[in-house]
C-alpha cells in the first residue's frame, strides 16, 4: 500500500471508534435484557433460510454454499443452538432464475418466517431480492465479493467491496511487477462494469494515461477467445509491462486461460489477476499452464492458521469427500453466520429490527487469523490476500495487507458516489448519506 492510501481511512477510523462505542452500549443493554428474553424464547426452533441455486448455471458455485450453511447450522445445534432453541435450515432452490429468487425470498420470510436468510451469488439475484427484503423487513447475508455502490438496511454484505479486493490487487501489480499498462477484461454484466468503472477512475488518479488502459467485455459463457487474447498480446507489446485485470465470470475463465497458454502468454509476460477465480473454479482444470497467474481474495484454502485447518477438516468430514475444496465465499458465510449468532444472542431475540441494530459492531474470528467486525455500513472488515496459482490448483499467498481493510460501500473514485456514506446507526440510519449536503439521498428507514 502506498503511503497516501492508509489501510483504514480517516472515515473508517471514525467508524471504528463509533462502532466500538456502539458495541459497548449495546453490550450493556443486552446483558441487562438477556435473561427474560432467553426465558421467553425457549422451545420451538429458529428457522434459517438458505437461498442458493441448486440447479441451473449457478449451481456450480452455489451448491457448495448451501452445504457449508448446513454444516454451520449442524455445528451450532451441537453447541446447543441459539437462545436455547435449535436452528432449522429451510433450503429452497431458486434454480439460477433471477425472478424466482424474489419469489423464494418472499416465501422464506413470510411463509417460513425465517429469522435470517443466507443466500444469492450473482449481483442480479441480489438486486432481485432486495425489494423483497426491504418490504418484509427480512435479513439477508450476502457472501460474495461484489461491485459495491449499495448499502441496504436489510442486507449484511460479508463479501468484499471493490476496495477490499480489486484495488489492493491493482496496487500489488503496480508496486511489485511495475505494471504500467492495463487490460480490464470482464463479462458483460453489472459487477464487471461497475468494478471496471471504479478501477479505471482509480488508475487515472495514479497517473495511468487513458491510452494505457484497454477495456474489453465479452458475453456470458464466451468460449472463443482467440482474437481477444491476440489483441491483449498486441496491447502488451508496446514496450511497457502489461497486466490483465480479469472480472471474467467463473466458467468463461477456463477457455480464456487455455487460450493464453496456447498462444504462449505466460504469467511472467502478462500476469492475469482474477477476482472470480477460486479453488472451486480451478478444481475443473489442469492448472500447470496457469502457474503464476494471480487471484485476489480475502481467504484462500492455503491460509496457514489453526482456525482454517480446523475448518477444512470439519468441511471434509461433513461432505465425506477428502477432495472438496474451500473458498472465499464459504469463509464469508462462516463469518456471517457466526456474526448473526452473536447478534441474535446480543439482541436476545430474533426480531429483525433488534438484530439489525445489534449486528453493528459484532466481531468474530475469521479464518485467516484475525477478527472481522461488522461496520455501520453493514459491510465487514477483511484482510486482502493475493495468491499465485500453483500447479496443484491451490494458491501460494504472495502478499497480504498488514491489517484489515474497511469496506467502502460507495466508491470514492466514482463522481456520483464519492460524497456518500452508509451508516445504519441511530440517529443517522441512512444507506446513502451525502456528507457534503448533509442529506440522506436513499435508503432512509421510514
Amino acid at each position, binding site marked *: 500500500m502506498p503511503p497516501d492510501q492508509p489501510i483504514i481511512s480517516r472515515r473508517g477510523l471514525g467508524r471504528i471508534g463509533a462502532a466500538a462505542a456502539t458495541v459497548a452500549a449495546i453490550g450493556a443493554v443486552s446483558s441487562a435484557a438477556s435473561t427474560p428474553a432467553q426465558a421467553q424464547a425457549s422451545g420451538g426452533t429458529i428457522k434459517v433460510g438458505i437461498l442458493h441455486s441448486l*440447479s441451473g*448455471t449457478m*449451481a*456450480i458455485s452455489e*451448491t457448495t454454499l448451501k452445504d457449508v450453511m448446513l454444516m454451520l447450522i449442524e455445528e451450532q445445534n451441537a453447541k446447543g443452538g441459539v437462545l436455547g432453541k435449535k436452528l432449522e435450515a429451510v433450503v429452497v432452490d431458486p434454480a439460477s432464475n433471477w425472478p424466482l429468487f424474489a419469489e423464494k425470498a418472499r416465501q422464506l420470510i413470510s411463509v417460513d418466517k425465517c429469522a435470517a436468510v443466507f443466500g444469492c451469488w450473482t449481483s442480479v439475484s441480489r438486486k432481485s431480492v432486495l425489494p423483497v427484503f426491504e418490504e418484509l423487513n427480512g435479513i439477508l447475508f450476502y457472501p460474495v465479493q461484489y461491485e459495491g455502490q449499495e448499502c441496504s438496511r436489510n442486507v449484511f454484505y460479508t463479501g468484499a467491496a471493490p476496495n477490499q479486493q480489486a484495488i489492493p490487487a491493482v496496487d500489488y501489480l503496480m508496486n*511489485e*511487477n*511495475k505494471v*504500467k499498462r492495463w487490460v480490464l477484461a470482464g463479462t*458483460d454484466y453489472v459487477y464487471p462494469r461497475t468494478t471496471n468503472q471504479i478501477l479505471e477512475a482509480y488508475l487515472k488518479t495514479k497517473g495511468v494515461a487513458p491510452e494505457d488502459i484497454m477495456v*474489453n*467485455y*465479452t*458475453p456470458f*459463457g*464466451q*468460449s*472463443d477467445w*482467440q*482474437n*481477444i487474447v*491476440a*489483441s491483449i*498480446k*498486441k496491447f*502488451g*507489446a*508496446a*514496450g*511497457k*509491462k502489461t497486466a490483465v485485470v480479469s472480472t471474467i465470470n467463473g*466458467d468463461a475463465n*477456463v*477457455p480464456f486461460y*487455455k*487460450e493464453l*497458454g*496456447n*498462444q*504462449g502468454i505466460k*504469467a*511472467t*509476460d502478462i*500476469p492475469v489477476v482474477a477476482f472470480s477465480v477460486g479453488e*472451486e*473454479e480451478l*478444481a*475443473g*482444470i*489442469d492448472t500447470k*499452464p496457469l502457474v*503464476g497467474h494471480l487471484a485476489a481474495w480475502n481467504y484462500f484454502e492455503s491460509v496457514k492458521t489453526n482456525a482454517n485447518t480446523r475448518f477444512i477438516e470439519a468441511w471434509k468430514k461433513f461432505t465425506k469427500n477428502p477432495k472438496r475444496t474451500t473458498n472465499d465465499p464459504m469463509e464469508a458465510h462462516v463469518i456471517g453466520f457466526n456474526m448473526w449468532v452473536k447478534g441474535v444472542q446480543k439482541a436476545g431475540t430474533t426480531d429483525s429490527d433488534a438484530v439489525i441494530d445489534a449486528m453493528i459492531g459484532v466481531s468474530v474470528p475469521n479464518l485467516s487469523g484475525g477478527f472481522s467486525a461488522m461496520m455501520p455500513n453493514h459491510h465487514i472488515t477483511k484482510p486482502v490476500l493475493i495468491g*499465485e496459482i500453483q500447479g496443484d490448483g491451490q494458491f*501460494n499467498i*504472495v502478499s497480504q495487507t498488514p491489517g484489515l481493510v474497511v469496506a467502502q460501500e460507495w466508491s470514492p473514485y466514482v463522481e456520483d458516489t464519492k460524497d456518500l456514506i452508509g451508516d445504519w446507526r441511530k440517529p443517522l440510519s441512512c444507506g446513502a448519506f451525502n456528507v457534503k449536503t448533509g442529506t440522506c439521498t436513499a435508503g432512509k428507514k421510514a
Partner: protein
Amino acid sequence: MVRFVFLIFFSLVMFGAIARADDDPLAGLASGNYDQVAQAVTDLSQSGNPRAATIITALQNSQLYYLPDKTLVIKAADGSYTNAATGEAVTVPPADDDDPDSGPQQVRLNNNVRIAMDAAMGSLQLMDPDPATRLSAAGAVFTAHNPAVISVLDKAIAKETNASVKTAMEQARAAAVLSSDGATEDDKLAAIATLRARGDQDSRGLLQGVANQPGKVGAAATAAVTSIDHILQLWSIAQSVYYGISLGSVLLLAAAGLAITFGVMGVINMAHGEMVMLGAYVTFVVQQFMRAYLPGIYGANLIIAVPLAFLFTGFVGVVIERSLIRWLYGRPLETLLATWGLSLVLQQAVRSIFGPNNRDVDTPAWMSGATQLGGLTLTWNRMYIILFAIIVVAALMAALRFTSLGLRMRAVTQNRRMAAAMGIRTPWIDALTFGLGSGVAGMAGVALSQIDNVSPNLGQGYIIDSFMVVVFGGVGNLWGTTVGALTLGIVNKFLEPIAGAVLGKIVVLVLLILFVQRNPRGMFPLKGRAVET
C-alpha cells in the same frame, strides 16, 4: 521488461548490503523474501559458480529447500537430500510435529523470481552443446534483455556455428543493447536494424520503448515501428481469417448433427446441445477409465473416445426418437417444447450424476501450444479441430451418398410414402437418422471438451449458434451448413475487434435476420418436391 531491469537495480540497492555481507548469493535463496531470492538467482547466474545451473533448475522444479540453519538442499524425487552448494548427500532430520518450521522449507516462487530464473537459465545455457537448448536460451535472453549479459552474448555469438541460433543470439544482443544506457549510438542503430528485420510484436515493443529518445536513435526506432506495424497489419488480416475458420469449424461440428436431425428430418431438436454435452462427458469417462485400467495406452484416449461418443449419443438419440419424438412428427411446436424439456432433464441428470462442477478433461501434449508460420500464430488444438471437422463432414457426406443407409435416408426424406411402398421400414430409418445426427453431435462433444468447459451447461452455448448455421446455410443441405458455418465464423472474427465481442454477436444476428428475411430458405435452398412436404 525494461522495468524489470530497474527492479533488479532497485532490489540491488535495497538488499545489496545483505548479499554483500557474505558475498554469497546462496544465502539470498534461503532468505524467504521474494525480492532477495530473485536477486540471488541473478547474482548466482553471473557468479561463475559451476553449480549455478543445477541449483536454478532445482528451484524451477520446486526441489530446492532450506534447513532451519539456512543450508540449501536439493530434494530428489526419491526424497533424499543433497547439499546444494557442494553436491554432497546430507541427511535431514524430520520436522517436529508441533513446529513445522523446524523441517526443510521449500524456496517459494513468485512471478519476479520466475522472470529472474528464466533470464538466468538463458544466460547460463548460451554455451550448451545442444543447439535447441541454445536457441531457447537465446529466446529467454531476448525476453529478459538484461544489458549485463551482452559480454556473454558476444562470446557465444563468436563461437556459434548454427545460423538460426546465431541470428537468435544477435537479436537477443540487439535487445540487450537497446536496454543498456552505455551503448554507443552506432551500436544502438545497428540493434534497431536487427530488430526491424525480426519484425514481430516483441521487437515492436522494444523499439517502442526507445522511440521517444532524442536524435537518430529515436527517429530510427520510430521508422522501424511504423514499418513493423505495416507488416503486422497484413498478418493480422490473415490471422483473423484463421480465427474465423477455426470458429467456423467449431460451429460446423456443433451444427453438423443438427443439419441431419433438423435439416433432413425437420425435427426442431432443442436437446441437440445436450447430445454435444453427453459426448464431452463420454470423453471424461473414457479418460477416467483409461487412467485407472489402461494407463499404457492412455495417450490414445481421444481417438478411443470419438467412436464411443458416437455410439453412446447415437444410442441415446435412437432411444429419444423411439420414445418421444416419433409421437410428435408433424407437430413442430410440441416437438420444440418436448425436446426443450428433455434438454433440461438431461442437464439435471448429468448434474446429479457428475456434480455441477466442471470436469477435468486432459488435453494431450500434441494438442497444446502453437506454431509460428510467418506472422501467424497457429494453435494446435484449433488446427486439429479444423482437421476433425473436415473429416467428420466428409464422412457424413460419404455416408449419406454412398451407403445403403444413406440411400434409404434420402429416399425417406424425399418421399416417405414412395419409400415405404418400396419396402423401406420408414420408422426404423427415422430412428437411425436421428441416431446418426445425435452421434455426430456426440463426436463434436469430444472436440469441444478440448476447448470449452465440460459442465452440464456445455450444450446451451451451442444450440442457438447451431440453429443459426443450419438456417443460414439452407435447411437440408450439408454443403450449405459448411459454408454457413465458415461464413458466420469469419464474419464474427472480423467484427469482434471492431465492434467488441458483445456488439459483434448482435450485429451478426441482425445481419442474419435481414438475410433470412430476403432468402427464407438460406444460402443454398433445396429445390424440388421434397421442400413442399
